[in-house]
């Protein structure tokens, strides 16, 4: 659709893969005029696998990821995905785009008074008519898929429990199942492990990486934890003060880069 996007991109091996690449061009976000949180960020996610965005708090990681599905309104720039500029979409077109992008949240964001299975089925709300959701008459294929996903995240026995009875790690598994229920072409995760203990964090990262790989789709994950990023990401993007200051494979991330991203050096031993 956009000439500049296709020009900067190497010829894709297959149409299917090209469809799943995301191109961000000069994305700018100012919550207050004149104080940009994102300073004309450009980023291309053409690779499969997991891309980790690291950086200190308040550096715009979360804003960047939320601009992609327009939970946050960008001030300027373009975001090309599936042949459309997400920034220009509105109403039903924007909703149709959003259902192709699954999102996982730090605080899980489950509807606590609904059952686990219904939370997973909420991932279909962009597809099914409202009356079906209201009467809880989801298409049988969706229900079957929801059960399969609960099996896959290891919560098959919890289908009819209320979401507020689960532990943090279990809730995040439901969040992942809900995102996958959308049959997304891209997964976004905003600090998915920041509220979890170290062991559960590793399990959750493993789950996200494995499921994204199985679906053959890219995942973009914001995280604080550099070690987790090195362990699971195939590509690391380092942000500082609203700009990208590092972009490369985990091996290439050296202490000098970390100092540039986080500032100081006492914390690096």
């Amino acid at each position: 659709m956009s000439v500049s996007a296709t020009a900067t991109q190497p010829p894709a091996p297959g149409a299917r893969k090209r469809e799943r690449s995301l191109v961000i061009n000069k994305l700018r976000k100012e919550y207050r005029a004149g104080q940009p949180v994102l300073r004309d960020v450009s980023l291309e996610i053409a690779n499969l696998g997991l891309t980790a965005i690291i950086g200190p708090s308040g550096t715009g990681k979360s804003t960047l990821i939320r601009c992609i599905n327009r939970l946050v309104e960008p001030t300027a720039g373009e975001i090309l995905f599936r042949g459309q500029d997400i920034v220009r979409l509105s109403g039903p077109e924007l909703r149709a785009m959003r259902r192709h992008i699954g999102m996982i949240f730090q605080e899980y964001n489950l509807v606590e008074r609904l059952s686990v299975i219904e939370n997973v089925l909420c991932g279909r709300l962009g597809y099914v008519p409202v009356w079906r959701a209201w009467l809880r008459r989801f298409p049988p294929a969706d229900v079957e898929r929801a059960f399969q996903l609960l099996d896959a995240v290891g919560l098959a026995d919890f289908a009819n429990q209320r979401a507020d009875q689960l532990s943090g790690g279990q809730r995040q598994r439901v969040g992942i199942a809900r995102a996958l229920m959308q049959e997304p072409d891209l997964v976004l995760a905003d600090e998915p492990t920041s509220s979890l203990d170290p062991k559960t964090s590793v399990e959750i990262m493993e789950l996200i990486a494995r499921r994204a790989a199985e679906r053959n789709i890219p995942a973009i994950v914001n995280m604080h934890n550099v070690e987790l990023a090195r362990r699971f990401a195939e590509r690391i993007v380092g942000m500082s003060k609203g700009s990208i200051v590092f972009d490369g494979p985990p091996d290439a991330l050296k202490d000098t880069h970390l100092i540039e991203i986080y500032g100081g050096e006492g914390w690096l031993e």
Partner: protein
Amino acid sequence: MTTADVSAGRPRQWQRFSLPERIMRSAFYFVVVLAVIWSLRTIEIIPEFLYDAPQQTVDLFVRMWPIDWGWYPKVVHAALLETLHTATLGTILAVALAAPVALMVARNITRSIILNSVGRFILVATRSVHAMVWALFFVALFGPGALAGMLAIAVHSIGFTGKFLAEAIEEAKPGPIEALTAAGASPLAILIKGYWPQVKPAFLAIATFRWDINVRESAVLGLVGGGGLGMALDTALNNLYWDQVGLVLVVIFGIVIVAEIATAWIRSRII
């Protein structure tokens, strides 16, 4: 400075209010006393009526006794059912009318200050007019009877129900809403699957609490022609049949207690 004070042996001072604050507080108490004196003079208490009040009270109770239980199956039973129906239908109608207004008032649903204010005006306007006055209005429109009482209950309850419902909607957590938005859900789907599960317990608590209040209110609406127990009370008072008045009062007392117990039980089951 403080160290100098301590070394000089002067005790440090502390006072809760500054001098201007103390003057303001004294003035406030003075105004309250003035207001009480002024009110007492305005209501013009006639001492003679006050002196024999205890005898009058005893006299009333004596005339009510023995209560005319025989009147219950003839008139009061039907009036009691009418009161309960008035309260119940009125509450259901009130909730149906209040829900859209509450959505209009809740700032996380309706992002327009003008619409918020219009909704808020509807809530204040319906609530500030007493149910008795609404009943007089609807009796003039539709004639005396349970219909007028039911509409009075419904319209008067919009304010209370809508206000608390709007607050419950505004307290809904934004996280799940964000998640459903990100999944591409339509606004209506977000309302049904994101907001409703969060608001439901408050909604049921508000509706049952209002029903409890409405049972009490509809019991007396008959005094102005709104049907139900009040109508029976009015008849008995006009005929000076004090034993029948006593019966109606006992029945009102009983039904209010039953409503109280019922709503408390329902609320404990929901929450």
